[in-house]
Every structure is written in C-alpha cells, then in structure tokens.
C-alpha cells in the first residue's frame, strides 16, 4: 500500500496475566495526526513503546515505511519520540540535546549545524542553545524535546502525553503549535493522551483504547458525534446517560421506558424488546426551554420536564443542571443567555432523537 507509514498487524503484549495490548491492527497514513486516546492502564503507552521498539510484542508484526521492524532495536528504527517528562539529557546543553539524534547517525558537522539552526528557529528557541535543561521553563523544555524528536526528520514522531506536565494555559498554546509543526512537516504524529480535549483539538483521527483494545478508530468528528460503544460515548465529550428498557420498537426507533417517562432513540443493532439499554446524549445536544413550551411536541424531538437546579457559568458556555422528577440530573450545555430560566424554575429539556446514542447496558 502506498502512503502507509506505520502498520501494526495483530500486535499483542502481555505482562504476566495482564494483556496490555490485545491483537491490535493499525495503519497510519503519511502526514496524519493520529491520537491514541484512553484512560490510564488502557495500553496506549505500551503500544507506543512497541512502535518505538522499547517493548517487544509477544505476537504480531510492526512495519514502518513498509519495512518490518518487529525485531529491530529502537536505535535502528528511525522514529522520533517526545516523552511525558521530556527526558532531556541533563548534562548536555540545549543544542547538544537537539543534535543528539544526528550525532548518533554520524551526520556531518555542517549538516548538524544547519539542522540545528532550522530546529531552533522552528521551535522559537533561538539564543537558548547554550543553556542547560534545568535552566529552562517547562514550555521551553517541551519545545527542546520536540526539536530533538524532529531534527533527524524521522519516519514518524511518537508523543507520549507530552503536555501532561504543563499548566493549562501553556498546554492549549502548545496544542495549537504541535499541530502546526505536524502540518508543516508532513511527518505522521502518533499522540498518546488521556485528555480528550487534546485529542480532539490536535488530531485528524482518533483511536479510543480500552483494556488493550481499540474501542473505535475514526475521524475525530465521527468519534465525537457517532460513538461506537457506551465507553466511547462516556469517554469522549460530556454526555448524559439515560438507562432503561426497550418498551417498543418502531422501525428504526426504540421507545425506551424509564422511570421518568419514555424517550425515543435510534434502535441499536441487535436490541430486542425488553433489553436493558442506555442512551447517551451530549450536553450540547440538549436544549433548555422555559415551561411555556409545554404541550407542543415537534416531530423527531424528545422532551422531558424538570426543574432547573443550578447554572454553572463557564464563560463561553453555561451548564444548566436540570433535576428530573425521578431524581436524576441532566446537564444541558448552552450559551449563557441571561433570562432563559432561574434556579427552581420549571423547565423543559429537549433533544433531537438522532442525537441519542444507544447501547446495551454494560453495568446491568
């Protein structure tokens, strides 16, 4: 295949009784920003270490640029890596750190100097070449780590939670920058994170990982709007969950009976009448109205009545917490317009039927 930079074929890695990575297949295209998203312990870092050669798979094959590298050590793979705690060499200056990969490749002095200049200016590190890592701020260390990862123009760059140790403001700044470097250089980036916002902001495609397996791989909008499992629905974005049983099936729709009434949702593939089910609706897919709307029920929309309990103001948006008669809370995210409702007002929450993602109940 052309354009495929990295290919994993049925890669498995076990640690004693734990299967960290379980028969995983993956193909990363040239020029793609790919995020591996999952909670800690889901196997994403192990998978990254297998790609880097720091961990050997028990089964399966790893191909980089069409060449099998499964049994090659890390130093023979031509990948770059950015580590969570940067791992800059403390006894080397910034410049020495950055050119380290080129020195290991025995690049000529002239080539090294030229690349160093390029990397320093790309990452806005001009004038810092002579400093030691402990004399830099967190953001500068991060950029040195990126420069070191990129200077040898690797076949792909692996990033292991590189922003986890930075403060919030710096993080969002670096998210944009890292994506810009990736688009400029056209090198595929594989980005491991447990932070869904990072994954959504930066990547083109996302794989959501859990217990060593991919729950879903797809374009980030696909993952966000069309989750393939209950886990993805809860892990990506913020969703309300309504759990109940299927009371009736009407064509493509299922009517779900649940303590507080009944709602309609797209029918999940194999669900039968009576099976336990959860509907996930993203906070921002729900809308809140004053109680005056009661009585009108537009086609294709679910409505539930409740009481506004609180408004969490977040700036660009506000979260409206609505208490339902059943005792459950729904969170509705909307623009913080004043005057929609006040706490303790009776309100109506509505959402389009197709916004509900419906999966068999896991926790039953």
């Amino acid at each position, binding site marked *: 295949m052309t354009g495929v930079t990295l290919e994993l074929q049925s890669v498995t890695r076990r640690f004693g009784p734990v299967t960290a990575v379980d028969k995983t297949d993956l193909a990363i295209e040239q020029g793609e920003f790919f995020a591996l998203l999952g909670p800690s312990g889901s196997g994403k870092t192990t998978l990254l270490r297998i790609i880097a050669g720091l961990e050997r798979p028990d089964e399966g094959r790893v191909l980089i640029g069409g060449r099998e590298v499964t049994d090659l050590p890390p*130093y023979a793979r031509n990948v770059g890596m950015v580590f969570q705690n940067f791992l*800059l060499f*403390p006894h080397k200056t910034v410049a020495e750190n950055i050119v*380290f990969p080129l020195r290991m490749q025995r690049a000529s002095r002239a080539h090294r100097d030229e690349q160093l200049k390029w990397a320093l200016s790309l990452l806005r590190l001009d004038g810092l070449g002579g400093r030691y890592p*402990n004399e830099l701020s967190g953001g500068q260390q991060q950029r040195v780590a990126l420069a070191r990862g990129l200077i040898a123009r690797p076949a792909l760059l692996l990033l292991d939670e590189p922003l986890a140790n930075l403060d919030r403001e710096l993080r969002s700044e670096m998210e944009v920058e890292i994506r810009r470097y990736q688009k400029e250089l056209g090198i595929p980036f594989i980005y491991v994170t447990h932070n869904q916002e990072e994954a959504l902001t930066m990547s083109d495609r996302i794989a959501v990982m859990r217990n060593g397996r991919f729950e879903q791989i797809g374009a980030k909008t696909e993952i966000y709007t069309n989750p393939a499992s209950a886990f993805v629905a809860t892990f990506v974005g913020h969703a309300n969950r309504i759990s109940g049983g299927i009371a009736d099936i009407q064509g493509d729709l299922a009517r779900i009976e649940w303590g507080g009434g009944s709602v309609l949702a797209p029918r999940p593939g194999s669900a039968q009448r009576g099976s336990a089910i959860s509907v996930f609706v993203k906070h921002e897919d729900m809308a809140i109205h004053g109680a005056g709307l009661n009585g009108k029920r537009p086609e294709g929309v679910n409505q539930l009545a409740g009481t506004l309990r609180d408004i969490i103001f977040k700036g660009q948006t506000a979260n409206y917490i609505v208490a339902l008669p059943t005792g459950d809370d729904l969170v509705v995210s909307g623009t913080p317009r004043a005057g929609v409702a006040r706490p303790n007002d009776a309100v109506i929450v509505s959402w389009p039927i197709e916004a509900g993602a419906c999966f068999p109940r896991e926790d039953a």
Partner: protein
Amino acid sequence: MRAGPATLSMSAALGLLYVFLYGPIGYVIYTSFAVDIVWPFPPSFTLQAYVDLFSSSLYSEALTNSLTLATGAAVISTLLAAAGAIGILRFRSRYRTAALLIFIAPLFVADLLIGISVLAFNARVLGLPGNLFSAMAANAIQGTAFGFLIILAQLVRYNWDMDDAAMVFGAKPLRCFFEITLPTIWPSLFGAFLISFILAFNNLEISFYTLGAIPTLPSVAWGSLRFGLGAELFALAALVNGFVFLVFAVMYLLMRLGIVRFGYRGG
C-alpha cells in the same frame, strides 16, 4: 545574636567529639616533627624522622607496592560494584534483596578472616602463591561492598528512561552508557574508587596473608613496631593521614565548586 547556654554546650560537645575522633591522629602528626618522640614536650621540632623515612629503601619499595595494590584493588572494586549496582537496579527480580545483601555482607566479615580464608583458598584449592594480584583481588572483596553502597546511593536516583530516550534517538547500548549514564553517575564511581583505594592502601590483615614476604606500608610499619616505636613510623603515619586528608579536601572542593555533583541534575 548571642549564643545561649544550649548552643554553647552543644558546641562544646561537638568540640569534644572531634577531639575524641582526631586527637590521637593529631598527636601522631605532632610527634612526627618532635625531637623526642617519647615525651615531645616542651615542643622542639626537627625533620629528622622524615629524612630517616625517605632514606630507607624498605619504605619506598613498600610505598610502590601499596600504591600498586591499592590502584588494582580500586579498579576491580569500582568495576564490580558498578556492574552490581546497575544490575540490581535495572533487572527486577524476586531475589533482589537477597542479591543486595550478599553484595554488602563482606563488610561484616573481619579482615583477618578474609585474609586467612583467601590464603587458604588460594593455596589449597587454586594452588596460587601469594602475590600482589591475589592481594588486589582479596582487598577488592570489601572495596566492592563499600563501592556498591556508594554507587547504589546515587544510582537509585538515576532515571533509566534516559537510556530509553537515547536508544530511540539512535544510540546503541554501549554508546548510551558512555553518552548518558556515565556522565551522570561518574561522581559515584569516583567516590567508590577513592574509598576502595584508601581501604586497600591502609589494609594490613588481608594484605598480610595474601602477600607473603612482599612489603606494603602497613606491613612494614607493623614489622618495625616489633623493634619499638621508631620516629620514622610517626612520620609515615603523618604522611599517610596527610594524603588521605588531601584526597578528601579535593573531593570537598570539587563538590563545593559544583564540578562534581551528586545526584540528578535536571528538569
């Protein structure tokens, strides 16, 4: 700020402790310059003891032997201790604690026992004669244990992920060690070398049994003691102590000036 009675009594206690530790050594150094070594008061000084010391060919041969022995033992100790410490930290095993204890156990064996054991083992089992090399090996037993502790103390703070990073960027394991690990941990290797050097240099019992008739400074000093305290012995003791003191002073200065840093420097 005025010193209170508590501070004063603590300072006095500290002073007494130092006298307790270094009084005898100070006395020997003082006496080595005295005209009358039996009762060196009131003070009257001469360098005669040092002249006698340097004119004796026995002492210069013994010094050469001691330096050779100490260097050899220190090299062996440092290499074994470094390999042991790295091995114990890098490769996790159920038997890690046991392996660690076995490394430091020689510290609790009397020098005399090590000497006799090595003598018996070398002569009976291996059929080896006593010489400088077997003395180096025997002295390295305790040197390795001490060096192991020193290196381990620094190495526990070393981040082995550094090696992972270096390998991803193209460094083979050996290159990785010399580029990344060694520049970070060399002060502890240096410390292990110095300690095992001084231990072997000063050792009498182990060397005595493994060297046979070959003289070292401690064995010559011991031998001449049988003919009464000579002034040149005081001079020898003063010089050896001066040398050890110098080594420690240099180490201290290197650390103060930040040329040698213990511990991990980094972000």
